[in-house]
Each structure stands twice: as C-alpha cells, then as structure tokens.
C-alpha cells in the first residue's frame, strides 16, 4: 500500500469509524437493554453492555489516532489546498473533534450499566 493510499484509508476510517462504532454500540446497547428488561429476558446483560462499550471505545480511539496521523502527515497543507491533500487535512481536523464527542457519548451511554440502573420505569 502506498503512503497516499494509506492516508486515504486512515482518513476515511478516522471520519467514519467513530461514527459507525457509536451507532453500533447505541443501537445494539438499546436492544440488549430492551431484551434484558422484557418478559423472560436475560437478567444479566451488563457483560454485553460492557463488551459493546469497550469495543466501541477502542474503535473510536483508533479512529482518533488515525485522524491524528493524517493531520500530522498533512501538517503543512493550507486550508484552501486542492484535493487530495487539502481534503485529507480538512477531514482529519473534523474527525479529531468528532471522535472525542463519540467517545464521550459512548461513556455516557454506558453510565446506566455502571450505575446498574433497574428495569423499572424512570
């Protein structure tokens, strides 16, 4: 894989990896929670929630790292530079911020598990 191709892959992973990881944790976490609280559902869903949160968290951290690599590799690029360098730098900047938000929301999503919230209505 050439250096350019490597940066392309890293940039798209940086931009989309965190988003997909959070979406997966959010949707599957919701279904696991619903399953745990449904009639006849499993009483111990905490392990699944932790696995989901850790897996998503690792994926987001990797996306953040990828964004950092691309950002540094395109460090001297001006904001109006033509693609692909301008675009790589632009999306890397965006991903650097977005992935931090995804990491925070994953941690917040996990707070119900950490706090062992009950199934009863709030």
């Amino acid at each position, binding site marked *: 894989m050439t250096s350019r191709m490597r940066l392309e892959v890293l940039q798209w992973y940086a931009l989309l990896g965190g*988003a997909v990881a*959070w*979406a997966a944790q*959010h949707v599957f*976490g*919701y*279904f696991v*929670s*619903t*399953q*745990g*609280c*449904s*009639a*006849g*559902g499993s009483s111990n869903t905490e392990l699944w929630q932790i696995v989901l949160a850790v897996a998503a968290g690792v994926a987001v951290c990797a996306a953040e790292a990828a964004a950092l690599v691309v950002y540094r590799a395109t460090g001297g690029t001006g*904001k*109006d*530079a*033509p*693609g*692909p360098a*301008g*675009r790589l*730098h*632009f*999306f890397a*900047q*965006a*991903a650097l*911020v*977005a992935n931090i*938000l995804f990491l*925070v*929301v994953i941690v*917040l*999503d996990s*707070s*119900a*598990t950490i706090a062992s*919230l*009950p*199934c*009863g*209505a*709030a």
Partner: protein
Amino acid sequence: MAVSAPARERIGRLERVWLERPGALGWLTTVDHKRIGLLYFWATLFFFAAGGAEALLMRTQLAQANAKVVGPETFDQLLTMHGVTMIFFFIIPITTGAFGNYLLPLMIGARDMAFPRLNALSFWLFLGSGLFLYSSFLFHSAPDAGWFNYVPLSLKQYDGGLNIDFYALGLILNGASSTIGATNIIVTTFKLRAPGMSWNRMPLFCFAMLAAALSLVFALPALTIDLVFLELQRKLGFHFFDVAHGGDPLLWQHLFWIFGHPEVYIIVLPAFGIATSIIPTFARRRMIAFPLVAMAELLVAFLGFGVWAHHMFATGLSSSTLVFFAAASMMVVVPSTIQIFAWLFTVNLGTPIFRAPLLFIGGFILFFVLGGLSGIMFAAIPFDQATTDTYFVVAHFHFIIFGAAVFPLLGGMYYWFPKVTGRMYHERLAQASFFVAFAGTTLTFFPMHIVGLLGMTRRVYTYDAGLGWGIYNLLETIGGFTLAFGLLMIVANLVWSYRRNVPAGADPFNGSTLEWTIPSPPPAYNFAVIPTVTSAYPNWDAADRDHDIGKLERGELVLAGGHKTPASTVNDAVFDEVVDMPAESPWPVVLGLTITLALALVLLSHYLFAAALLGIALLELVGWHAEASPHENAEPRLARPNGWWGMAIFVAAEATLFGTVVGTYVYLSLQNPHWPPFGVAEPKVLEPLLLTLGLVLMSAPVQGAWNAARAGRRQMALRLLGFAFAVQTAYLAWQVHDFVDELHTMSPTHSAYASVYYTLLGADHLHVLVGLLLDVWLLAQLARGLTSYRLVGLRATTFYWHAVNAITAVVFFVQIAPRL
C-alpha cells in the same frame, strides 16, 4: 463584463440551447432547477399561509377561557393540519425544495441538478400530496389525531373516518417526493461540483444541504414503514400495534420518532446553511473554524438519529434504556454550540454591516439559544417527565422550528431576492419587518413556557377561567397576530420591491459564493463558463474570476453544444466527463398526476383501479426513458456515473426500509414471551434456502452482463441478462406460489408475527418484481444497441440486483429465525 464577439456568440448559443418555452406550458414541463425552486417557493408559501391561518384560528379560540370560536373536533383538525402543514408542506420543502434547488447548483458551479426530470417529479408529487391532504377538508375529514398521530387513537376503532387515511397516504406520497428530492441533492453535491471544488472548498451551505438530504434519505423510511403498518392495520386488519395480538402501540412512537427527531435537524440544518452564507457576507470575513462548522453540520444530522426515544421518556420505558437517549440528547448540543460560537466570533472579528438579512440571523441565533436551552432541559429525564405534553414543550419546539428555522429563511429571502429577481428590496422596511416579526415571535412563544409550567396541557381546545392561564394566552394571541403582521410586511416589501424595480446588479452585497458571479436573475444556463474554484469563497477570488473570462474567450469549458454540464469525481472534484442533461419534459407532471390519482383510489379502497393507474404509470416511465439523441460511443470515465450514484442512494433508502421492518420483527419478538405465537407452524427452511441461493447466485450473470456490455459485447450481455431474468422470474413465481399457499394456513391478520412476516416477504417480492421490470426494459433497450445511457442503466440495475439479493438473504434469515 466586456467580452469579444466570439465569446458573445458562445453565450448566445448557450441561451438558445437552455431557454425553455414561455407561459404556463413552460412551467408545467420545466426541468430547470431555478424554475422548479420557484415552483416549490410559491407552493410552500401557499401552504405556509394555510398553516398560519390554522394557527391564528387556534390562537383566537385560546385567547380567552371557555371561548367558542371553534368546537373540539374542528380544533383537533386545525392543530393536526397546522403541524403537518408546517413540517411537511412548508419548512422541509421550502428549505430543500426551494432554497436547495435554486441555490445548490449555483453555489457549486453546475448548470442543473443531477436528475432534472426527477427534480420536477419530486415537485409534482409534493404538490399532489399537499392537495390530496388538503382535499380532506372538502370531505370534513381532515386528519385529527395530532401531527404525530399516536396509536391507538388513530386506529380504526377510535377514528373510523377517512381522516387518518388522508394523513397516512398523503405523507407516504410526500415522503416519496422528499426522498427523490434528497437523492437529487446528494448526487448533485457528490458529482456536479465544479472541477477544483474538493470537499474543503465547498461552501458551508452545501454541507448543510447535504447533511439535511442524507438525514431525509435515512430517516424517511421509518416514517414510511410506520404509515404503511398503520394503513395495513386500518384497511386490512393487520396487528402491528394491537397488544391483544402481540403488537405494541409504542412501536408507532419508536418508528415515528426515529424519523421525527432527525426531522428537527432536517428542518434546522438548511437554516444553519443560510446563516453561514449570510454571516461571512455581512461580517465581511471568512467563517471562523470552517472545518469544525462543516463537521458540526454533519454531526448534528448523524447524532440526531440516536435520540429518538427522548420523545418517549414518559411512556414507561425502563431507566436503563432511557439513559442511552439522554446521553445522545446531551451530546447533540456540542456540535450546535460549536456553530453558535463560530457564527458569533465571525461577526465579532469581522466588520459587520447590520442589514436586514444579518438582523434575521441575529434573531435566529437568539431564538436557537433559547430553544436549545429548553431543549437540553428535556435531556434530563425527570424534568422531561414533569413537563411532557405541556405548553412548555410547545414553547421549546416553536422557538426551534419557527425562531431558529424560519428566521434564517426570512433573512435568506431578503438576501437572495436581488439575485432571483434582479431587483433590490427596501432596506428600512425590511429592518422594520424584522423587529415586528421578532417581537411577535417572542410574544407568541415565550409565555408558553410559563403557562406550560403552570400546568396547561397541549392540544386542549379550551380551558376554564380562574386557572391563571388567561393572561398568558391572551398575550400569545396578540403575539400571533403581531407575527402575522410582520410576515405580511415582508411579503409587502418583496412584492412592492419587485414592482418598484430598482436594479440590484449581479452582486449587491459582495457575497462570497458562486451565485454572485453571474447576472441577476441568473440566465437559464447559469454559468457562461464552468467556473474555476480554489476556495470556499470563490466570488472573493478575483484572479479566478479573471481566469474564467479568459476561459470564455478561449471557449474552454463553455460546453455550448447542448444541454451539458461537467461531472467530477466525488472526493476531489477532478473533472471527469461532460454529462448530457435532459431538456424540458411533460413526463414528470403526467407521472405525478397519475400517482396522485392512484393514491386517491387507494384512499377510497378502489384497489383494482389504483393498480390500473400504476400500470399506466409504468408505461409513462417507458416514455420518460425514450432517448432523444442516443450517443453510441461511451467515453471512458474516472468515477461512477450519476445514474449509479442515484441508484446507490435509492438502494440505501430501501435497505433502511428493510432494516426498519427487520428491527420491528426483533422489537416485537422481545415484547412477546412466545414468538412466534402458539399455534403457528415453524417456518420451512430447505425450500426458502434453495430459492434464496438461486436468486443470490444470479448476481454473477447480471454482473457478467454489465462486464460484457462495458467491453462492447452486446450479444453476450443480452444472453447473460436473459438467463438471469429467466431464473429470477422462476424464483418470483415460486415464491408467490408459496406466499399464497401460506396464506391458507396463517392469515396476516392472525397475529403481529404474521403481520410482520407477510409484510417483510411481500416487500422483498415487490423489490424482485421491480428488478424484473428493469430487466425487461434493459433487454429491450440492449437489443437495439449499446449507448452511453443504456450502459449507465445496466450498471445501475446491476447494483440494484446485488442489493436486492443481499436484502433477500437477510429476509431469509429473518424468515427462518424461529428455527435458529
């Protein structure tokens, strides 16, 4: 701009090529994005007036205790139609349909949208759905269960007239229109950006439109499926929402809000885009934190999909489930705040001129902060539960939906009025109209916070005296009429300014984007030469504009030989190919009318006549796709063509639709201790497995047909496609036989399980049928030779079949799930 005689000749040729016929017929057959944008503008203003009149009637009724202006039934219809109209027939279509259509191609340097005829179809379907819905008043059957139409209230046993059917069918048609429009916006943004406009050089308005369009494509399927479920239950007795048969009324709410919350951002995002157009112009500097604002626009749209259940905090969902949605609701504030700070710092660090458009943006920011602050309160579960269904919620969402979404639109109307008409508006009257509208908005919606906290619930048609609500309601009503007066001042200003005819020139505000580089109003062909772009503020790049004049003199990228516009690569907007765009056509309006009539027949349960009309619609599609001037020699291209991207977005929407049905299956299975219910035979495995394998394997010959056609081997392509068609037809025949056979042992009205089962299989078979129709059309076309158009059609159809095969495989696993 002084240009030489040859350049003038080129411009003259462009005018002749792109000019459409004048008069009413011209408007009916137009495919020009600017004229379609104007059609959307006038139609949405008509619906806005209707929705506004409904609001004023309600406010008059509520102005004092125990008033008798309208009765409870009429009030229910007014409040439902007000909500439905403002959301589906005003804000969404005016932002994406009017502003998006008119401005997007101008801002990216294109001559039209990617699919001009689909663009026209989108408008006619929108108009049809609006007239269909409003015709309900003629039958005294306007929708009356609130804009979110909760079940069981909207089920047949509680609402037996046609009211809810008008709602459901009208919104299905409206959703189809919005999906087509959104697909067009996405493909246009992906493929028609002027060469050089890589993502980092695309104006923020276009990012906002892209984010809104992506949200529409992925959010609407949930609403569409919800409405289909509702109609199947109301008309045919299915059991999606019926607890006694394994259904769940909360399913409606889940699906509605999976659409409904992203829809809030669909409404607000274009407003963000308008703000990010107006602020740099009047602050006279570039936007602060451009990449972060672009990211924030996309992120708001994305996070918006994860917060749906925060509308359901009071429904009794478990605490552990609600936390997911509280978390996402809090986090969505962050990207919104990034934008607010970016707007404020841009104004603060610039040298702002507070003309009317910027004043409206100032009002927008204030209202957005106000509505946002009350919004974040709802992320706190206990607060939400205490204020659910009170006027506090009404106050919150009106500050967002009116204050934050409509104020930028009003600013945008003033900002682009000179561009659209070539005439200048009256500045002082415009500023006065801002202050009146601002005061009216505040007076209408702010007291609702107080009256909500005092306990006044939403949707009540009257209230008793002595509750302490009267004075606030009176203030709100005075505010409502003040606001209406402010809006009338804007209309009066624009109409008077149009008649006054003070020339505006091409660029009265020194705007930053490409639309300000061309004459006002824009010529039919938009750009005499495809513009050079080296930043997100191309009108401020004087050297590039000089370069464009040089290109025009040399005849470079003028493309005056026909309806042509360049297409570029998605990532970096590298020039790829010259695309032939269709000219004006009667098919969109004819097809739109046929589909609307078919829907009316479904409403009246005349299914056979409706099917006949859909057959006619298919014939119209054949006429639509007749090529005026086939191009035998397909030029090699770097990237996938527009047609492929259009199909990809369509398939993404369809996959979301199937995902929603599969999600429904899983959701209902979790609500039922016995799934499938007792007495239902376990599904067969071997036969569906073999059938599915047979269909999935047909991906190979379909792909082979495309490969052969691309290499110019037409006969081989025909043989492979013909073979695939034969097997696919046999597959469908067998499946339909099994489907009918199963109906004898288990009716769809047996249980919620049976309802979902048959809906899923039926939807899959329908998609296979559409694929077969595409095959027939392609076989007929390829038999007459290979053209560029047909190759794109084959490529798109190949992609369609791969997607349908993948979906069928998923459906198979769901079908046999009880055996796993």
